[in-house]
C-alpha cells in the first residue's frame, strides 16, 4: 500500500502536538480544540473561505440550480488497499453531487473522533482527504470536529456534505429512461466492496484487491460534453450495480436487459467474490458510474469515457426495453435469462 502521507509528490509531515492520541478535551472547544484545528486540520484544507474560521462559509455561486448532497462514512477498517476513510468521504460526496451533472463547488467536513485515536492515523486520513479534494478540484469550506469517549465510536466517522451548480438547461433524472436507451458502465464492478471485505475477513490473495475510490466529476463533465442528452448518471455504491439498475427501471417504469458476458469484473475481484459466494452486481463501488443514454449517442459516450482515466474500461452492459417494466433481467453466458433483484439486507457468505 502506498503511504498516504506522501501522495502526489507533496509531503505531509505530522505536526508536533502535546498529545499523540485524541483526547476528550480536543473536542471541548478550549485551547486543545484550537490546537487540533489550527495545527492538524486547517493546514490540510487551507483556502480563503475556510481560513476565515467563521461559523459558516459564505459562497458566491455561478448561475444555475444548486445540487446539494450529504453522506456519512463509518467504514471499518479505516485503511484498506487503494484508499482509506478520508478519500472515500471526499469522493463519495463529490460523486453524489456530480451525478446531477453539477460542477462540484465546495464540501463541508464533520469529524467524529474516538478518544484514544492515534494522531498519526488522524493525520493520515486528513492528508488523504486533502489529496482527494485536490484531485477532485473542490474546496473544503467549513467543518466541525467532535470527540466521543473510548468505545463509543470506531476510530473516525466522517460526514461530508457538498454543493454544486447544475448548468442551465440540464435536468438529469432516473425517471427519464426510454426503451432503446443503452446502459453504460464506466469500469469494473465490485473493487471497493471486495477490497474492504478481504481486509475485514483476513483473506489474502497474491495481489491485494484495491478499492476503486475516485472522484467522478471530471468523467461526468467529459461525458456531458460529448453527449448533452444523457438521461441520467448514478454511482453504484452500497447495494451495487443491481440496486442502481433497479432504481432506474422502477423510476422510469421500463425494463432493463443486461448481458452478463460483457460486465467487467477484475479476475482478483471475481476470485474473491467466488470464494465468499457473493455476486459482484451487489457489491459497493466508489469510483464507477452507470448512465443511460439514447442509443444513437452510445458510441460517443463510450469514446468519451474510455478517453478518461476513470472510464478506460467503460462498456455498454445492456439496454432499456418496454417489456417487464420495473424489472432488471440479465442474459447469462448460457443464453438463459434471470432476474437481477434488489439485494435483501446484508450480503452474507454462504455456509458451503
Amino acid at each position, binding site marked *: 500500500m502506498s503511504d498516504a502521507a506522501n501522495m502526489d509528490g507533496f509531503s505531509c509531515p505530522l505536526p508536533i502536538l502535546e498529545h499523540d492520541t485524541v483526547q476528550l478535551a480536543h473536542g471541548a472547544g478550549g485551547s486543545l480544540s484550537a490546537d487540533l484545528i489550527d495545527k492538524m486540520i486547517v493546514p490540510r484544507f487551507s483556502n480563503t473561505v475556510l481560513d476565515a474560521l467563521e461559523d459558516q462559509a459564505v459562497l458566491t455561486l455561478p448561475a444555475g440550480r444548486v445540487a446539494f448532497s450529504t453522506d456519512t462514512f463509518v467504514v471499518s477498517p479505516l485503511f484498506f488497499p487503494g484508499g482509506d476513510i478520508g478519500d472515500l468521504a471526499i469522493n463519495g460526496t463529490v460523486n453524489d453531487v456530480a451525478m446531477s451533472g453539477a460542477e462540484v463547488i465546495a464540501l463541508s467536513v464533520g469529524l467524529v473522533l474516538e478518544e484514544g485515536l492515534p494522531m498519526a492515523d488522524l493525520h493520515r486520513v486528513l492528508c488523504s482527504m486533502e489529496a482527494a479534494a485536490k484531485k477532485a478540484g473542490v474546496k473544503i469550506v467549513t467543518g466541525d470536529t467532535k470527540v466521543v469517549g473510548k468505545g463509543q465510536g470506531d476510530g473516525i466517522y466522517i460526514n461530508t456534505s457538498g454543493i454544486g451548480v447544475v448548468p442551465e438547461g440540464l435536468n438529469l433524472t432516473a425517471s427519464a429512461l426510454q426503451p432503446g436507451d443503452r446502459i453504460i458502465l464506466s469500469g469494473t464492478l465490485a473493487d471497493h466492496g471486495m477490497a474492504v471485505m478481504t481486509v475485514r*475477513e483476513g483473506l489474502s490473495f497474491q495481489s491485494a484487491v484495491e478499492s476503486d475510490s475516485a472522484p467522478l466529476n471530471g468523467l461526468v463533465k467529459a461525458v456531458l460534453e460529448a453527449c448533452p442528452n444523457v438521461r441520467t448518471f448514478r454511482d453504484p455504491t452500497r447495494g451495487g450495480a443491481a440496486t442502481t439498475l433497479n432504481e432506474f427501471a422502477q423510476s422510469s417504469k421500463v425494463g432493463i436487459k443486461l448481458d452478463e458476458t460483457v460486465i467487467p469484473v477484475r*479476475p482478483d475481484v*471475481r*476470485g474473491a467474490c*467466488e470464494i465468499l*459466494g457473493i455476486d459482484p452486481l451487489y457489491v459497493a463501488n466508489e469510483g464507477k458510474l452507470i448512465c443511460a443514454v439514447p442509443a444513437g449517442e452510445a458510441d460517443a459516450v463510450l469514446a468519451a469515457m474510455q478517453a478518461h482515466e476513470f472510464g478506460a474500461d467503460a462498456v455498454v452492459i445492456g439496454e432499456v426495453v418496454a*417489456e*417487464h417494466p420495473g*424489472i432488471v*433481467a440479465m442474459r*447469462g*453466458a*448460457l*443464453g*438463459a*435469462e*434471470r*432476474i437481477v*433483484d434488489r439485494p*435483501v*439486507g446484508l450480503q*452474507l*457468505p*454462504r*455456509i*458451503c
Partner: protein
Amino acid sequence: MKYLDEYRDPALARRLLDEIQRTATQPWVIMEICGGQTHSILRNGIDQLLPETIELVHGPGCPVCVTPLETIDRALAIAARPEVIFTSFGDMLRVPGTRDDLFRVKSRGGDVRMVYSPLEAVHLARENPQREVVFLAVGFETTAPGNAMAIQQARAEGLENFSEIVSHVLVPPAMEAILSSPTNRVQGFLAAGHVCAIMGWKEYEPIAAKYGVPIVPTGFEPIDILDGILKTVQALEAGDATVHNAYLRAVKEQGNPAARTVVDAIYEVCDRKWRGIGTIPGSGLRIRDELAAFDAEKKFDVGGISTEEPAVCIAGEILQGLKKPDECPAFGKECTPTHPLGATMVSSEGACAAYFRYSRKGLS
C-alpha cells in the same frame, strides 16, 4: 479464470444440452440434492434450457433450511446470554426462529459474530478466557470435519470456554426417506459433490441398488450440472441403477479419510429432526458423550422452549421434491426474502429464495 471458465463454457453447455435432448426418450424426474446446485440451476437458467422431458426437483440439501426451529430458538436463547460470544456462519444470522433471529438478538446487545471458519471461534475462545464462546455447527457432511476439528483443537489446548450447538445432518438417510415415501416422484439423483468429496461415493451404492435409482455425484458449475444430468439420463434410459461419478476433479471413491477420522472422533450418528420433514432415524451427528463439556446445549440450560411453524408454509413438501416454490399460495405474497415464513425462503440456497430471486415473474 482457470477452474471456472472451462466449467461455464457456453459451447460445451450447448453440446451437453443437445446430448441430453437426444438421450431422453421419455420424461424423467431428477432431484438435485444440494442447495448450492439449486442456486446454480436457477442462476444459470438451466431449468429453462433443459428439454421438457427432464424435470428437476429440488432436494433437502440446504443446511440452513433443514435446521429445526427448536435448535434455532435454543441458539437464540444462548446467544442472548451476557457471558456468551455467539459465532455462526453468515447465512444462519438471518434465519428466523419462532419470534427472533440472530440479527435482532445482536441489536439488543447480544454479542453475535459472523465467522468464516469454526477455528476462528476457537481463536476467540483463546483470546477471551473470561467469556463463553459458542459456535452454531450446522451443515451436512461437508462442514462436519471443520466443525469437529474446532472441538479437537479446543480440547488439545484445554479451552474450557468453547462449545458448539451441533445440528449436523447426513445425506443418505434423507435420500432413503424421500425414496421410501409413498408419494415419491424422484427417479434419479444428482448427489451433492462437496458431501461426496468428504464421504466418497461407496455409501450410495446400496441405496441405488435397493431403490433402483441412478445416483450421480455432481459439481456446482453449469457444465458440472449438465454433465451430471446427462449421466443420470443415460443411466435412467439404460435401466442402470448404479453410482456414476460426474465430479471427478473433487470426488474420489474413498472420499477424504482424514476428514472422516476427525468427524468420527468427535461426533456420533444420532436420529435428527429435519425442519419441515420430521425426524429421520440415523440422519444426524451429535457430540460424543465423553465430550459433553463441548456441547453448548448441555452447558447452558435453555429448556422450556416451544416452537410454532406458520401453518401456510409448505417448506416440508418442497424439501421432499413434492412441490415447487411457486405452487405455494404464500410465495412472493406473504412470504418473501424480507419477510420469510419458512427457512427455504430465508437461506440463499433455499429453493424458495432461489425462485424468488431469479425467476419470480415470467420473462419473455
